[in-house]
């Protein structure tokens, strides 16, 4: 057992009892990164010197018994689209190769207030566009379970770093599945909270009506602790929800007796790998044995979600990414003929192929003559998808299905077929469009690769989602499996 095998609650307890120091823990993190990241390639930037200095400071504070934050002295990794003051933040794009933020994102500040030490910044698909990390301008992160396979994405670095035991937890962001799908592929826990629960201030915007930050952890209880640290209203994000934040760790107590679970039949259709389906059916049996009941339900507009999502997300992205013009930050092209030429050259040199493709799609969908046919139509279909969930939640407490239709695929397997790549998100995208919370937890293995179970809840009912996930985890052993690296 090394410090990196402990849960957050165990780490906190050991740090408080001073049987483990923040320095020892931080040393273990960087030793593990040094030993494994040549293979995994999860980190884009390390914050080693600063992290060690902070660890010393926390050790002094622990000795002096000063008031400390809930996660004081615990290192974490942060996805590279969440800005961190003084620490390079690239969004895995050449455009931001030299970008050092001058302030923190809301969540970066909240983690600091909780005493978390930033170990470094984690790889992703460029500007969070992709589901494999192959769209990073820097490196392809490997799946710790099979280094020939992708870790998923876009928060692939965040998932792989936790699965490889490099950091106790990480933060990611989820627009159409970018926390849940990599968590599923890497055999860890990934939570996408309700849209608006976590401030997006300082999250580099991809699709503003969908983007949401969340934790990637090894256990559900860890997820509750991290969520507690980063949730809360923020006046700097006008879509930040002003709701009471419950005690998420306390919400894990209780049982699921009498819980009504709906299983969307569209999530168990023929497109889903039979082994994935079997793992989900086994999980449902576990829930039955815990006293819950389940039955099939229909979310009839599921098959339209991917099309609606790609029009909406790309439209929002084309608008959001217009800020990257080479004037105020980022990489500016050399020798432009004039100002317009500076925009053209900087953007064309700075953006990768998938980002350009989505900007093109979004610009087209928003352009004169096509707005009603594509963008407005997709917004209307979004309403129908949201209504599917509203209706299902009148009858059921939770919805459960697979997180992704398959396990992790091989690097290079889908790179030339964007539409096929988009289909990996077919079970996470509807949830994002509806804005409801969902978690992915390990529920078995198929041919040596992890399978994720997706538990979906009512808006702002993270407590019910976490409780069900926690009870499932307690009743099974899947989360204890570790990849051999």
């Amino acid at each position: 057992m090394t410090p990196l095998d402990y849960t957050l609650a165990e780490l906190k307890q050991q740090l408080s009892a001073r049987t483990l120091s923040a320095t020892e823990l931080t040393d273990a993190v960087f030793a593990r990164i040094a030993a494994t990241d040549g293979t995994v390639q999860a980190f884009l930037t390390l914050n080693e010197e600063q992290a060690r200095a902070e660890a010393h400071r926390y050790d002094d504070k622990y000795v002096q018994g000063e008031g400390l934050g809930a996660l004081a002295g615990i290192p974490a990794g942060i996805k590279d689209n969440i800005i961190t003051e003084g620490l390079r933040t690239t969004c895995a794009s050449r455009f931001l190769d030299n970008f050092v933020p001058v302030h923190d994102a809301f969540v970066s500040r909240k983690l600091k207030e909780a005493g978390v030490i930033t170990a470094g910044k984690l790889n992703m698909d460029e500007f969070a566009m992709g589901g494999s990390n192959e769209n990073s301008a820097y490196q392809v992160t490997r799946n710790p379970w099979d280094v020939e396979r992708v870790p998923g994405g876009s928060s692939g670095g965040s998932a792989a770093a936790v699965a490889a035991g490099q950091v106790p937890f990480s933060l990611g962001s989820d627009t159409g599945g970018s926390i849940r799908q990599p968590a599923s592929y890497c055999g860890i826990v990934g939570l996408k909270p309700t849209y608006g629960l976590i401030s997006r201030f300082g999250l580099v915007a991809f699709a503003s009506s969908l983007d949401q930050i969340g934790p990637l952890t090894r256990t559900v209880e860890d997820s509750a602790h991290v969520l507690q640290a980063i949730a809360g209203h923020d006046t700097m994000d006008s879509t930040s929800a002003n709701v009471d934040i419950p005690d998420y760790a306390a919400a894990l107590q209780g049982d699921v007796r009498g819980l009504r679970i709906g299983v969307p039949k569209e999530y168990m259709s023929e497109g889903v790998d039979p082994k994935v389906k079997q793992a989900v059916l086994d999980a449902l049996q576990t829930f039955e044995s815990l006293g819950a009941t389940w039955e099939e339900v229909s979310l009839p507009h599921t098959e339209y979600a991917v099309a609606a999502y790609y029009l909406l997300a790309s439209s929002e992205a084309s608008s959001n990414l217009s800020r990257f013009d080479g004037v105020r930050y980022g990489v500016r092209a050399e020798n432009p003929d004039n100002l317009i030429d500076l925009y053209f050259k900087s953007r064309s040199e700075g953006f990768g192929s998938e980002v350009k493709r989505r900007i093109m799609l979004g610009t087209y969908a928003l352009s004169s003559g096509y707005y009603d046919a594509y963008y407005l139509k997709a917004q209307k279909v979004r309403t129908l998808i949201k209504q599917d969930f509203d209706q299902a939640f009148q009858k059921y407490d939770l919805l459960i299905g697979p997180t992704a239709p398959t396990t992790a695929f091989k690097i290079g397997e889908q790179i030339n077929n964007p539409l096929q790549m988009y289909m990996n998100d077919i079970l996470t995208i509807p949830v994002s469009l509806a804005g409801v919370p969902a978690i992915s937890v390990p529920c078995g293995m198929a041919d040596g690769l992890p399978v994720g179970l997706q538990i979906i809840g009512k808006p702002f009912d993270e407590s019910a989602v976490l409780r069900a996930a926690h009870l499932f985890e307690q009743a099974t052993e899947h989360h204890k499996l570790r990849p051999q690296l």
Partner: protein
Amino acid sequence: MSINLHDVEHVAKLARLLLTDEEKERYTDQLNAILKYADKLNELNTDDVQPTTHVLPIRNVMREDEVRPSLDREHVMKNAPEEEDGQFRVPAVLE
């Protein structure tokens, strides 16, 4: 609806992207495939459906219009590709 090479050139111009001939052809094919897939949405009658712009039941969020501190200029200019006298320097806009 389908998109041709001329449309791709027009959209690239709107998006301030310079594309190579190879990129233009590739994007024409790929965008056509994606838009063809998106035509699936037309199977649904949405005449009486309100659009969803975002899922939260909030409208405009107002605050008092008060002066408050913001980032100082020196900080803001730290990432400037080119700077002059505390301002962002760009090529001449007017010839």
